[in-house]
């Protein structure tokens, strides 16, 4: 074992030695620096390994041969080993990254760099207060020097601000240290901690001064303008170091000194951390400069960590894993992001669209963003999960809200940024060179994130159940992403089919899950089949699609809360990437993500309450929530409803589904939305529905469902865009389902199931076929279509069948749904809502007619004369689904009867009775098979008659009669179906004024305006920043010690 002291000796030795190199050996300097950093990494790494593998005692290093407190001692324990290791790793990788910049500036810069990393090591290891001060100073001076690797006026100003602020802070620290010495007679940190200076009114002032200066070093909001400017102006390579290494060291110092003042001070630290977390992220929302944005985000993350330290009394032994998860994610992601920023060198986050030139870089960027927000499988996901659940277990609601609010705000700007990178139209994408020495460190950080994520999984309660198998498949698809579509498509379908066989025995006997698994997996196979019609490689599609399906099936399989949430987030991430693939999807993907994050946090809050109720990690915990049950139910319902796009939370859906690629639309519409339904069903089945809160909630949800249906159908009727029409139709259909299951009776649920299955089938058909047509014709607008019946007869039949199902017309299964539905409504007595739904049902005919009429009937457009039928790869899955519809329509009992039996134990009265093919309720009976036979016979007779007549019909060729001499100013006005329901629109249009959209828009404007107003504190004056620092001290003093 190499002693930790050699970190100092070797680093300084090399730094001093560089002065001897002179001109001839100048080129050796950079290699000497790398060697030094490598050695430091090795030393700390071997200690880390030692502590991880052997249970050995903390190593103390005595300098000068005397025991503390009489001499300075260093300490190397597992935590010190961890911190020095991560500091040295980022130091080493950062040196690689900055290799050319350092070389250009010369050996002096390398000395500074080496000494900088060394000083952070000592800051972590030292157990002497004044020694800590000295090496903090070494670190700040080195930082002030490294800022000037960028030779710009901005960097100079930033450096000066930094020097002024740290000058004041270190003065305060020095006074604190000397008084701490005066009170305790020692400078040794362990002695100081034992001196209990927080207890006495006279000695507490030293505690205050030390705390306030260490906290200020961590750049608390709002006294941090000087720190932000460093991030903004310095070379991003240096930003990475400050963000990853300095902040980690500073965080550890705070941790080390945490017991200095006693429990009361923890509250202050937590509050400051919370304010920093929320405030700094809020600032980020108005930020366009990438480095500055990263600066705000860094400070926000450190605020979160500070808060965790402050809450350490509450978090108990969980604090370690929480802080570890969040710290390591921040560390790796922030370093990676800063390094990426250095590669791209864009002045504006919009310039990151250049990343698209390299899919790998885009992958890295996505990884870092998702890791920061706390998506699985990154360590921050587990950290946040433990944090929220532990806080819930202690009843710390306010802290939970703070954390989730801050995280959400962070999501606002990070996902805007990611969206720009993926999709933004940018005329001249800046060129950037990819050098291996810059890419390599970024890759390492991404790998760290994944590896540590997997590593910590089993450390979290319930985490060992998480199934990484599907994720491995996703990873595999990433690896083969260069292959052509048909290979990847076959592999993906094969994977899903294999998983079906794998999962069937697991779910056998659990009908609820079996049905949804069927929807997800069969739906997956069928929608993927359409992918064979695509050419090329379709980069990135398959891993993301499989990620979504992995998440979906994970939800089904989940037996614990964390598994469910893990899969839920996985599904969200995958579907986000699918949705944003559409040509004009950037804003829609963004709003989808924001609603999803908001919903996920609502779910997280609800799950945390469930867990905290009786420390049960299994999903069954939802059944025994006794902490704020009404709030928990509401949050969970709202969370799931962000996915079902219920009224108020629906505004993302039309754009997201409408603009998505033709085979993505059916995936996200027919399949993905059902995840929300599944969530709601699970919730409703588990929750105590006799409680007042639950009853009220269900009543409200019933209304929400009814109104969603009305709004969805009306909006659909007034659409000109075929895919958006279908999207609104989805909103409406999900409204039916929500309404039906809110009834909470066997009939209602049967109706809900019928609608779920129907919607899955017909919406998949419609989106597949209409999407195919839209792609074929190159327009979304129905008034630019027409007469397709002759060109695309198979498509026509598919759409016709689907429309019959939606319309609830016998003999198809839509009628079964409606019949059950109205039975349930009447049984429950929700007449008003029922009336609304009935009315909405009539409106549905309007849009259905519009859809089929304007696409397939009427005049064929001139430019469509050579159009052929859409690809067989789209028609085949559609027709398989049609067969499914036919079977379900003719023999509903094979599915509905078992469902009814399954539901029986949950609902007191069994109201639907089956006799063979006949279902009876108190209100009447219905026999699917008989209806089918009757209608089919009638249909066949009619058809025969028509065919007999057809010989007498005379065929007339179509003439172009639209224009005689000139083109109309707005060609769409000549199409019969354009604005076909103008009259209705006049009468009822007010009902669908986009109030909800306006509401969310004004909300987001409010937040942004507030941020804009607030950020005026960062006016750029270095003196004002110094005043902020002093003001921070003063206010903290007045609150903590001034009795204010």
């Amino acid at each position: 074992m190499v002693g930790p002291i050699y970190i100092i000796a070797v680093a300084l030795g090399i730094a001093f030695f560089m002065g001897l190199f002179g001109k001839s050996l100048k080129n050796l300097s950079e290699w000497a620096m790398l060697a030094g950093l490598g050695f430091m990494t090795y030393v700390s790494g071997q200690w880390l390994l030692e502590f991880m593998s052997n249970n050995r005692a903390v190593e103390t290093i005595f300098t000068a041969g005397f025991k503390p407190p009489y001499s300075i001692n260093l300490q190397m324990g597992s935590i010190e080993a961890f911190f020095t290791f991560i500091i040295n790793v980022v130091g080493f990788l950062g040196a690689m990254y900055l290799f050319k910049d350092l070389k250009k500036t010369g050996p002096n810069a390398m000395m500074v760099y080496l000494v900088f990393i060394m000083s952070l090591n000592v800051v972590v290891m030292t157990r002497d207060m004044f020694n800590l001060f000295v090496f903090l100073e070494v670190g700040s001076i080195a930082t002030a020097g490294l800022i000037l690797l960028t030779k710009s006026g901005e960097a100079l100003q930033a450096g000066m601000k930094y020097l002024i602020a740290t000058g004041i802070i270190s003065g305060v620290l020095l006074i604190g240290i000397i008084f701490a010495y005066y009170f305790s007679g020692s400078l040794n940190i362990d002695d100081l901690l034992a001196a209990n200076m927080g207890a006495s009114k006279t000695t507490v002032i030293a505690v205050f001064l030390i705390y306030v200066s260490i906290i200020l070093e961590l750049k608390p909001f709002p006294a941090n303008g000087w720190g932000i400017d460093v991030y903004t102006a310095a070379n991003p390579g240096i930003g990475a170091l400050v963000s990853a290494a300095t902040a980690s060291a500073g965080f550890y110092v705070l941790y080390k000194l945490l017991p200095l003042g006693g429990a009361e001070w923890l509250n202050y630290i937590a509050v400051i951390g919370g304010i920093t977390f929320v405030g700094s992220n809020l600032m980020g929302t108005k930020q366009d400069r990438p480095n500055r944005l990263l600066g705000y985000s860094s400070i926000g993350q450190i605020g979160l960590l500070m808060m965790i330290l402050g809450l350490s009394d509450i978090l108990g032994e969980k604090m370690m894993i929480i802080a570890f998860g969040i710290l390591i994610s921040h560390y790796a992601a922030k370093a990676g992001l800063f390094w990426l920023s250095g590669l791209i060198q864009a002045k504006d986050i919009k310039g990151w669209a250049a990343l698209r030139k390299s899919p790998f870089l885009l992958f890295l960027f996505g990884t870092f963003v998702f890791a920061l927000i706390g998506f699985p499988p990154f360590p921050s996901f587990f950290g946040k999960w433990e944090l929220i659940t532990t806080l819930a277990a202690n009843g710390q609601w306010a802290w939970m809200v703070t954390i989730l609010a801050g995280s959400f705000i962070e999501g606002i700007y990070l996902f805007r940024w990611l969206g720009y990178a993926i999709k933004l139209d940018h005329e001249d994408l800046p060129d950037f060179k990819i050098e291996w020495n810059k890419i390599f460190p970024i890759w390492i950080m991404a790998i760290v994130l994944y590896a540590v994520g997997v590593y910590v999984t089993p450390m979290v309660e319930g985490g060992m159940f998480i199934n990484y198998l599907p994720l491995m498949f996703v990873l595999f698809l990433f690896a083969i992403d260069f292959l052509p579509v048909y290979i990847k498509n076959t592999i993906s379908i094969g994977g899903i089919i294999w998983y079906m066989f794998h999962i069937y025995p697991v779910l056998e006997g659990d009908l609820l899950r079996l049905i949804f698994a069927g929807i997800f997996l069969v739906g997956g196979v069928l929608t993927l089949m359409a992918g064979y019609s695509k050419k090329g490689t379709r980069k990135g599609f398959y891993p993301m699609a499989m990620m979504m399906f992995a998440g979906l099936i994970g939800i089904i399989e989940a037996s614990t809360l964390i598994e469910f949430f893990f899969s839920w987030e996985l599904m969200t991430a995958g579907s986000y990437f699918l949705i944003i693939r559409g040509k004009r999807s950037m804003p829609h993907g963004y709003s989808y993500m924001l609603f999803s994050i908001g919903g996920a946090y609502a779910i997280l809050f609800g799950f945390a309450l469930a867990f905290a109720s009786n420390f049960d990690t299994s999903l069954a915990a939802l059944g025994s929530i006794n902490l704020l049950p009404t709030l928990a139910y509401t949050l969970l319902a709202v969370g799931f409803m962000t996915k079902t796009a219920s009224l108020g939370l629906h505004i993302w859906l039309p754009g997201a589904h409408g603009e998505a690629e033709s085979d993505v639309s059916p995936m996200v519409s027919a399949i993905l939305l059902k995840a929300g339904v599944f969530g709601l069903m699970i919730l409703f089945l588990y929750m105590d529905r006799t409680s007042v809160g639950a009853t009220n909630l269900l009543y409200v949800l019933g209304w929400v469902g009814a109104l969603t249906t009305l709004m969805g159908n009306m909006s659909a009727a007034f659409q000109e865009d075929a895919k958006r029409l279908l999207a609104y139709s989805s909103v409406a259909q999900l409204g039916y389902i929500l309404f039906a299951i809110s009834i909470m009776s066997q009939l209602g649920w049967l109706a809900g199931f019928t609608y779920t299955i129907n919607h899955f089938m017909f919406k998949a058909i419609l989106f597949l076929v209409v999407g195919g047509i839209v792609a074929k014709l190159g327009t979304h607008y129905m008034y630019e279509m027409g007469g397709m019946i002759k060109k695309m007869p198979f498509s026509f039949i598919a759409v016709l069948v689907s429309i019959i199902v939606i319309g609830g017309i016998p003999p198809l299964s839509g009628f079964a749904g409606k019949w059950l539905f109205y039975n349930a409504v009447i049984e429950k007595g929700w007449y008003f809502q029922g009336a609304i739904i009935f009315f909405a049902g009539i409106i549905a005919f309007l849009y259905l007619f519009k859809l089929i009429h304007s696409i397939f009937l009427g005049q064929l457009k001139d430019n469509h004369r050579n159009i052929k039928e859409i690809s067989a790869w789209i028609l085949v899955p559609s027709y398989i689904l049609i067969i499914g519809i036919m079977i379900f329509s003719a023999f509903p009992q094979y599915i509905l009867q078992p469902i009814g039996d399954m539901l029986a134990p949950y609902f007191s009265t069994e109201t639907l009775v089956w006799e063979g093919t006949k279902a009876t309720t108190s209100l009447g009976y219905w026999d699917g098979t008989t209806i089918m036979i009757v209608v089919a016979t009638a249909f066949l007779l009619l058809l025969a008659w028509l065919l007999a007549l057809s010989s007498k019909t005379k065929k007339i060729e179509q003439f172009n009669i639209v224009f005689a001499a000139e083109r109309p100013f707005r060609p769409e006005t000549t199409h019969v179906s354009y604005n076909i329901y103008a009259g209705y629109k006049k009468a009822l249009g007010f009902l669908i004024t986009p109030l909800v959209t306006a509401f969310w828009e004004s909300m987001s404007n409010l937040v942004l305006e507030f941020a804009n107003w607030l950020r005026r504190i960062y006016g750029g004056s270095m003196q004002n920043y110094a005043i902020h620092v002093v003001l921070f001290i003063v206010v903290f003093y007045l609150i903590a010690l001034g009795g204010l």
Partner: protein
Amino acid sequence: MEYIIISTGFALMLLGLWGILSQKNLIKIILGFTIFNTGINIVMVSIGYVRGKAAPILDVIKPSEAASKIVDPIPQALVLTAIVIGLGVTALMLVYVLKLHREKNSLDINSFKDLKW
């Protein structure tokens, strides 16, 4: 006496802070820092003062009775370090000012507000 001196130290610190926070000229601000640091040093040395005791140098004082005859040497050792650190920081700040002056031909602190928001 030590009370008077420590008060002087605090007063110098306040004076220095006033200079840092109120002056517009960058050189003046750095002067404020040197005065602030001087004040800190005075406070620190006062902390180690023991009334009526001699400097911690054992030329006349015998090692055996040193404990009762000398002032506390630790704060002095710390101040020694602090003074040198102060010099380093001051020199660095001055060079920064030199460069800043070249950038904008001004020493006014308010002409360096390029970075904001």
